[in-house]
Every structure is written in structure tokens, then in C-alpha cells.
């Protein structure tokens, strides 16, 4: 089984996001795992994060201001893989930093660092050639996003060539803002699960254990990002403790939901 399959086989999974190079990333990643995160999403900072709300935008800029380079992100990923051999690791970011040295280079670096999957916000299925074939060639999952605007006609194109899990963006909007109504999430997840052979994780606007628990009752995974990134902003290099605490509460809520 792949690391993703193992992680999602145990029941609803908690997927935790932080931005690479923002705060003490190695300590923060360890805190997420210790707190009970089942999948880690590591954000690749970009100067122009068009799909992100203020919390993650600022995290991107804090990281870049400290001089984070792409090579640093792969060093962080490889070190994480060495410390945590079984926890799936996903890189999430934007097309330009991922493709600037060519998709083959990026896919090879991902494979070398033990990265399991990649989420690229601004490469829709229509532009798959830009990154998808290279990742699949190296056995790295391309994790696509489905959104409230993805209709039944588009869904097969979104699912084609994606693996690991499907990330359902529960609101038409940017990260860290309002949460979708629970009933609309339930309807959407039911449709996605009927069409998809891979697990469906739900994110965007999920901040509290209560919200996470409600979603975990219907979905295979819950993604939390901005609430964690806020803690890094608040506590700087001393964020590991607070991150562990929030992750524990979220993990407890997600894992006991079913």
C-alpha cells in the first residue's frame, strides 16, 4: 500500500497544512505528526499566491522574506521523510516555482525527497501536460482540486490522472475565509465519492474541532491550514507547542467522528 492508502485506510484522516520556511518548520512538522496529523501538506511559498487568503499570503511573504529557496523546501521535505518514514507528505503551491526548471526536474526532486503528492493550484486538467506526466512518471501523485463550480461534466477530467486523494474545496473562494454550509458539503462529497475511486478530503475554511468533526462524518479527510498558519504567525519560532495542542484537538475530533 502507498502511504496515502495506509493513511486513509484507518478512517477519516486529518490533513494539516503549514508553509515551508515560516517559523521553525522542522519542529512544527514534528508537532503536527505528534498531535495526530495523518497527512502533511507543506506549502511552497510564492510571491503571488492568488488562491490564498490573508493568513497564508502573509505566511508566504514571511517565508520568502527570510530567504527561503526551493532547495530549502526539498531539504525540509527530505529531512521530514527521514524522521517520519510513514506519514504522507504533499507539496502544495503554484505553477511557476514548480515548473521553472522544467517539470522533469521538479518531479525528480519530489521523488528524491520522499514527497508523495503535489497539489498545484493553478494547473487545471486542461494544462496537465505542464506537470502531470512528469509527476506520474516518477510515481508522485498529482492531487487535483474539485470545487463547487466543478460540475458533473467536468468531474471525469478532474479525476483523470489524479491519485492519492481528491481535494474538495468546499467554498468558491480563497483559503481561510468562511466555511461552507454543512449540508452543501455533504451533498458535494456524496457526489464526488460516487464518481471517485480515491479518498475525498474537504478543506477551505475549516478552523475548529467541531467543524472538522462534522465534515469527518461524511468525508475521508479534513484539511486544516489557515488556523495552523495563524498559530505560526502568533508564536513565531515557538509555535510547536500550540500547533501540537490544536492538532491534537482536531485529530481527536476527526478520528472519533466515525
Amino acid at each position, binding site marked *: 500500500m502507498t502511504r496515502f492508502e495506509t493513511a486513509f485506510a484507518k478512517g477519516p484522516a486529518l490533513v494539516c497544512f503549514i508553509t515551508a520556511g515560516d517559523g521553525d518548520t522542522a519542529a512544527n512538522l514534528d508537532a503536527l505528526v505528534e498531535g495526530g496529523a495523518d497527512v502533511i501538506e507543506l506549502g511552497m511559498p510564492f510571491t503571488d499566491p492568488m488562491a490564498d487568503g490573508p493568513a497564508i499570503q502573509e505566511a508566504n511573504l514571511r517565508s520568502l522574506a527570510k530567504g527561503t529557496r526551493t532547495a530549502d523546501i526539498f531539504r525540509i521535505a527530505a529531512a521530514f521523510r527521514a524522521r517520519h518514514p510513514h506519514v504522507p507528505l504533499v507539496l502544495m503551491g503554484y505553477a511557476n516555482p514548480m515548473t521553472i526548471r522544467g517539470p522533469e526536474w521538479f518531479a525528480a526532486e519530489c521523488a528524491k525527497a520522499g514527497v508523495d503528492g503535489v497539489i498545484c493550484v493553478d494547473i487545471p486538467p486542461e494544462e496537465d501536460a505542464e506537470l502531470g506526466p512528469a509527476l506520474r512518471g516518477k510515481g508522485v501523485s498529482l492531487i487535483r482540486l474539485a470545487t463547487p463550480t*466543478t460540475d458533473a461534466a467536468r468531474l471525469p477530467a478532474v479525476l483523470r490522472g489524479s491519485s492519492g486523494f481528491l481535494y474538495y474545496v468546499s467554498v468558491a473562494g480563497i483559503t481561510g475565509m468562511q466555511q461552507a454550509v454543512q449540508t452543501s458539503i455533504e451533498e458535494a462529497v456524496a457526489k464526488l465519492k460516487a464518481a471517485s475511486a480515491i479518498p475525498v478530503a474537504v478543506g477551505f475554511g475549516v478552523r475548529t474541532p467541531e467543524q472538522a468533526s462534522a465534515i469527518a462524518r461524511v468525508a475521508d479527510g479534513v484539511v486544516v491550514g489557515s488556523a495552523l498558519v495563524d498559530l505560526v504567525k502568533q508564536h513565531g519560532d515557538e509555535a510547536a507547542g500550540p500547533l501540537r495542542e490544536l492538532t491534537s484537538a482536531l485529530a481527536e475530533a476527526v478520528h472519533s467522528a466515525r
Partner: protein
Amino acid sequence: MRMLPDETGHFGRFGGRYVAETLMPLILDLEAEYRKARQDPAFQAEFDDLLKHFVGRPSPLYHAPRMTEHFRALAPAGPNGEKRGPKIYFKREDLNHTGAHKINNCIGQILLAMRMGKTRIIAETGAGQHGVATATVAARFGLPCVIFMGAKDVERQKPNVFRMKLLGAEVVPVTSGAETLKDAMNEALRDWVANVHDTFYIIGTAAGPHPYPELVRDFQSVIGTETREQIMELEGRLPDMLVAAVGGGSNAIGMFHPFLDDPEVAMVGIEAAGHGIESGQHAASLTGGRPGILHGNKTYLLQDEDGQITEAHSISAGLDYPGLGPEHSWLHESGRVRYVPITDDEALEAFQLCCALEGIIPALESAHALAALPRLTAELDKDSILVVNVSGRGDKDIFTVADALGVEL
């Protein structure tokens, strides 16, 4: 050369649709609606009518006699002693309603928005010219309008901010990033993704995800189409050279596109070289950048080796963007159009020369195109014809120019 983009929205390897999944269905809808509109004579008729009666088209093609003589006097003789210095014409987009070419595109896009039943308009703006043009058409059609503008630009361009407000628009200062045009575009995209159900995004230049580069070009092509008819009437032949400034590149592509398949017409796009390419402080994406993906399209961008976008600099706020439209990237690589960098100082000099010799205060963007004339006129014989696109008027720039010249107003 006029057949592109292909059906996937690419100009060679450039262009495309690099957007978040949330926007993808909307962009496909827009494309379908645009295809229908192009086939609909009523759409074209309404567009033409508004351009004539609201914008004031056709804009004149004006023979600039004193600039012509000025450069003829300066041009060194050719290798066989032939006289140099072409007859210079200005395409007067500065005479349009709202003072620049921007309005052509805004008219086209708001007609599309109305067809699609959208009830809210958003746009990004740098100097405020596209913001003013968008606020103008939104007022004309009675739609609420939100303009995203970098907080720094809001501060630098107060008269245009007030104009937009007078026209009923809400101006949102963007405080993320460097607080300029690129950040305003990010913020407009964020708003759009959260309001896809009722909102139409009027992009200000021939860039962004397909079909924007195509439809903006088509709406701006009225510039080149008119120029073609006017020069045939005045001179009975096509011009030898077209010159236009390139920021995002909509005035240039609008001028060039109707001539792309006429090999005898040379074309020169002028990029903003700011303090000079070697200074690193410029906005010349083709001369000083390389291909990458930003704001929905693949094109030449100013960026570092990790693909992080770097800040552009130009004295002209309208050229102060770290990328350009994808069709220009393609025309650059195919060699059909030559792109030349012009510095802030050269543009300032041309700005003053145009005021003094022709009685026309050009926009700083257009002054970049005029600043290439010393070089370009020396390449052309006396009996040749050169057309410069004077894309906008410079009233908006007088404070910037006064500041640069050390004049206190």
C-alpha cells in the same frame, strides 16, 4: 499569423489557462459566450455604435510634420547617400473618451458581461487608466463596480482615484505584496473566485487566462483596422513600420494584429527599461525576463531562478508590470515583432519633445514609443512611412513628470 490562439488558448507555447479549478468552468463559459457574440451581428453593431458615439471613434491618423522634420534633420544619410527619416504619423488614441485606448476593450467586455447576465463588475488598475475606463462603462450600463488598486498606486494617483469614485466605483486599496498592479491583479482574482456566480472581471490588458488575451486583442484591433483604412486613404499604401509601447501590450497588439500577415510592415514594440536593464530596475519582460506562469498565462516574466516574481519598475505606471501578454511572447520568439527597451530618461525626453513640437502631451506610456524614434527613423528612407500609436494623453502624468524634472507645482 493571425489564426492564433489555437483551440486550447495557446500562442505557440505561450498563453493557456493556468487558473484555479473554481475559475475554470467560468472561463470556459466566457469563451463559449465570446464565440457566440462574435457571430452575432447585433453584438458587433452595438460595439461599433458605442465606439462611434460614446468613445468618439474613429480616432484620427495624424501626420506629425514637425517631428517628421526634426528626425529627418537628425538622421544620418544611408550607405549610398540616400536621405533618411520617414514620414511620421500618430494614431491618436489619446483623443478617445477617458483619454486612452483602454476604453475600447472595456466597451467590448461590458457588452459580454451584459450578455452573460452578470450584475457586478470588477477590475484591477495600476495608474488608474483602466480603472477609470471600467468605472466609465459600468456607470454607462448601470452596474456596480469594484476596482482593485495597489495601496501605493492609490497614493500616487489620487486624481484617478477621485475620477473612479465620481463615476460610482468603489476603489479598494490592496495592501498585500508590493502594493502595485501585480498585487491588484492578485486581489481581483481572489474576489472573482469568491463571487463567480454574479461577477464579471474586466481584465485591462491582452493577458490573463484564455480567452482574455484573444478577446482584448480583438476589441483593441479597431486601432489597427482603422489605421489600415486611414493610411490607405491618405497614402494609398501600407506603412513601413508600426511602433507601440508594450506594458501588458493591449494597445500594441491592437495596432499590430491587423497587419501581422503583411510582411512589408515592420513592427516594433517598446518595453520599459526603467533605470536601465543592467540596473535590474525595469519592466522589460522580454529583454530582461524569461518564460513562466503567472496570472493565468504562460509568458515572459521578470522572475528569479526559483520562479519568484520580481518587482517591475517604470516611471510609467501603465508599463510597470513584471509580465506581458502571451501573444507578444510568441511574436517575439517568432521574430515577427522586434522589441526594444527604452529607459525612463529617454521617455521623459520624448515626452517633452512631443509637447514642444506637436502640441500634444502624450501619456508616459506613449512617450516610450516616441522615444524609440531617434533610433528607428535613422533606419528608414525619407519616402517611407512610420506610424506611432499615441495610446493615451499625458494629463494624468504631469505630476510624475514635474517631479522627475524637479519642478514644484
